[in-house]
């Protein structure tokens, strides 16, 4: 499923009905579970005019194929790194550059999504994953990166594991 479709699926789940204006939904991160792949996201308060965020308010997961929610947890109960939702975070990305960066990220996501959680990728596949990871890090605001890693540690462990012996990554 393409990134755009993954996002549309979330917006149509029962959780999509809880997403308020002035919030930011993170990019969906796939996580392998006993039941298959689930997508995980977090939501922050978002002021796009000032490019500021609150720490995540909610963490959630959903089944994109079925368009149904799987879990929805308030960060008041389970905060990220003990950072409460009242914390304001200044974004670091330049909004003027975001279009180009997002399009690159989206393109790479759609290109490599079939490789997610594949073991022993070929050199060519590793090259694609390397480009994908760079596009992701380039696009996602640096201030939010820590939350992504806590949201889905297994995905980043897998990705960095596959890239561990890739020449350019070293």
């Amino acid at each position, binding site marked *: 499923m393409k990134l*755009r479709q993954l996002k*549309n*699926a979330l917006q*149509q789940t029962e959780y999509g009905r809880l*997403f308020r204006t002035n919030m*930011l939904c993170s990019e969906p991160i796939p996580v392998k579970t006993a039941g298959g792949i689930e997508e995980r996201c977090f939501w922050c308060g978002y002021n796009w005019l000032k490019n500021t965020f*609150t720490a995540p308010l909610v963490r959630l997961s959903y089944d994109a194929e079925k368009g149904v929610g799987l879990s929805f947890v308030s960060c008041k109960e389970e905060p990220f790194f003990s950072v409460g939702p009242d*914390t*304001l975070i200044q974004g670091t990305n330049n909004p003027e550059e975001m279009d180009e960066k997002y399009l690159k990220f989206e393109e790479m996501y759609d290109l490599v999504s079939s490789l997610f959680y594949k073991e022993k990728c070929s050199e060519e596949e590793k090259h694609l994953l390397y480009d994908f990871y760079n596009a992701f890090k380039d696009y996602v605001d640096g201030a939010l990166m820590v939350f992504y890693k806590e949201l889905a540690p297994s995905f980043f462990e897998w990705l960095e594991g596959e890239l561990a012996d890739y020449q350019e990554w070293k």
Partner: protein
Amino acid sequence: MTRYCISMEGAYAMETLGRRLSYNADAITEASADLEHRIDEADGTGNSLGIYYDAIKSLMHEILKTLENSREDLACLGDQAKQQADMIIKLVTDGLGVSDASDSYSANRAGNKNWEPRKLDATRYGFKKDSKGFFFYNEPKETYDKLMWHVQGCNTLHFRGTCGLCSCVNILRLAGREWTTEEEVVRYAAAEGLCTNNSPDNDMNGGTTCEDRQKILKHFNLDCGTFSPVFSSGWEINYDATIKLIAEYVETGRGVILSVNAYTLWYGKVNNGNSGHAVVVISVKKDKNGQIVEFFICDTGSGIGKWYKTDKIAKALLAYPMNLTGILR
């Protein structure tokens, strides 16, 4: 009453603009704070506004003078800022022409309790032809200028992220509850937890979901449902079918609040689908072949009401549920 609301909007909108653009106008801030205090007191009783009317009028003259002096500075900030400045000057100027504000304000307040939406079997309006041969529903410009709430952030809780709440205000106004203010809706929503009310940043406070807006409208006696974009297989939005659906709702007199990406709507940027903004659709324009070419959008975030090309609306659309009422007008 409408003229009174315009004057209040003008004064409040100016404060909002001042905050947003951070331009250096201490005089406006001071005058606006004083005005807000007086309005707060007037709101408390609903009847005492007349006592303050002369003071408000005098303050507005001061504010208008200061704003006009700042027009050049505002123009430097870009077309949108200039448009807002021009609009606010117009609003304040209109407001200064009010002569019976307090009377109509009290009268309408008394009417709140018994308000019911119109019961219509079909829309009362049809399409008109413009000078270029396009057909448009009702009178969008006039509706926008005379009826709609223009700029969000005009409330004493200082919530500024109130696009969805102001969209409720505008749906209620379209439905005939013309005296509805942002203050009234924001106060209710905040008290009932039907909007974000605990963010450390007031630009984030006032945020709503589609369901929040449904409940708010219900409180004001207006039934409201939801609709979603039309999907083709695999969660791909079918934009042509969705645009047709929206047009059909609007031209049959129903109230529609769209969920869009503001960054795309305002600046034509890529829609990454990660954040939402609410706007009301007032009208639809078609060519002689019936092709939908534009929608008239009331956007309280930008403070602008204007025609947007259909493809721009399609690009800005999100997949979240959106609000839909019965026939309002």
